[in-house]
């Protein structure tokens, strides 16, 4: 079945509304790109290089994500409203393990 490569993700926007997204896992997409393709208000200014912090989100589900790299942490230093579950969504490379992932968009300053 083709659906094998599709995962579901839920994203809470800044108004508290939850959006259900479907994403293919065989196209090397990251979460920022998928959210942008659904026209959610994510800037992704730098294009996904962990160089701008404009795709900052909070991970709400208890998925075991890879640790944030030093570059990602460095960039989070320049973001605001940073919490323990803060991540740059461009650094979450989507794979089957992320099915059911839940995130919330961080406020923009």
């Amino acid at each position, binding site marked *: 079945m083709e659906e094998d490569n599709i995962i579901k993700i839920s994203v809470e926007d800044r108004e508290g509304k939850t959006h259900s997204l479907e994403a293919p896992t065989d196209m090397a997409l990251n979460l920022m790109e998928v959210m942008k393709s659904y026209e959610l208000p994510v800037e992704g*200014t*730098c*294009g996904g*290089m962990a*160089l*701008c*912090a*404009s795709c900052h989100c909070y991970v709400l589900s208890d998925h075991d994500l890879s640790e944030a790299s*030093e570059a990602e*942490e*460095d960039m*989070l*230093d*320049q*973001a*605001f*409203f*940073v919490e323990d579950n803060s991540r740059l969504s461009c650094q979450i490379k989507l794979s089957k393990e992320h099915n059911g992932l839940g995130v919330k968009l961080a*406020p923009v*300053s």
Partner: protein
Amino acid sequence: MIKTDILIIGAGPVGLFTVFEAGLLKLNCHLIDALPQVGGQLSEIYPKKPIYDIPGYPSILAGDLVDRLMEQIEPFKPKFTLGERAESIEKIDGDRFILTTNKGTKIDAGVIAIAGGLGSFEPRKPPIPGIEKLEDKGVNYFVRDPELYRNKKILIAGGGDSALDWTIELAEIASQVTLVHRRTSFRGALDSVEKVTELAKAGKVNLVTKAQAIGIHGEEKLEGVKIKTENEEKDLDVDYFIPLFGLSPKLGPIADWDLNITKNAIEVDTLDYSTNVPGIYAIGDINTYEGKLKLILCGFHEATLMVQSAFKRIYPDQKLSFKYTTVTGIEGL
């Protein structure tokens, strides 16, 4: 007053290449950029990242591409106004423009080409209630003159090179320096990190990690900053608060120029990348149209078509003949 054929707002890759294509048509260019250096995002955000989709270069570092572009446009002697932001435009004589920068520089141009990328880079401002009210009244996003801080109590926030470097320098001048940072580790150059750690041990810098500034107080001028650490919130009496969280692009005053804007991008006609205001064009990442791709490559193409239209506007009575550089070269232009 500076006078030019094409005034290019934004000295990123697309703005720079515009000089080349304009030069082939004997149009001269003046570029302005809010950043103090050319290259836009390529210099400011990712100079050491390789780019793989520039024709003819299987891989080129962003910073190197900027250097090559500068070399390529050098024969056309472009002029630059750097470190100044385009603030306002007014139309004169029916068809020319005068642009004024935030520092009062005025430039008279026949055509304006906005190649502003994502906008002008401005300091990231912490989302602290009331902070705007105290900007330049104790809250400074840049250190322009260190002497301002002599014998003053200052608080610096941030974890990068500028936060570390200014902490080190101002520790010599100010009566008290506090550095507040979100984590215990810093992303700055290793020797700066070591130096700040030494200063903290020697009691010359008050280093507060795993903390952030969350509030400020003061009416006419800054009186103090509230910081939140892992365990507590506390008020620090300071004369100056210097948040150093890097720069981020903002569309800025361009948004008020009566241009049609959709989602922070300027709508253009793909015939010649003209905007709804005759004589103003928008090229590169700052424009939008059906099928738009934000690629340097596409910006180069847009610049090339745009200057053809600009020529017709500046010299309506002259015939434009298209020539290949392989036939005429660029010498003697």
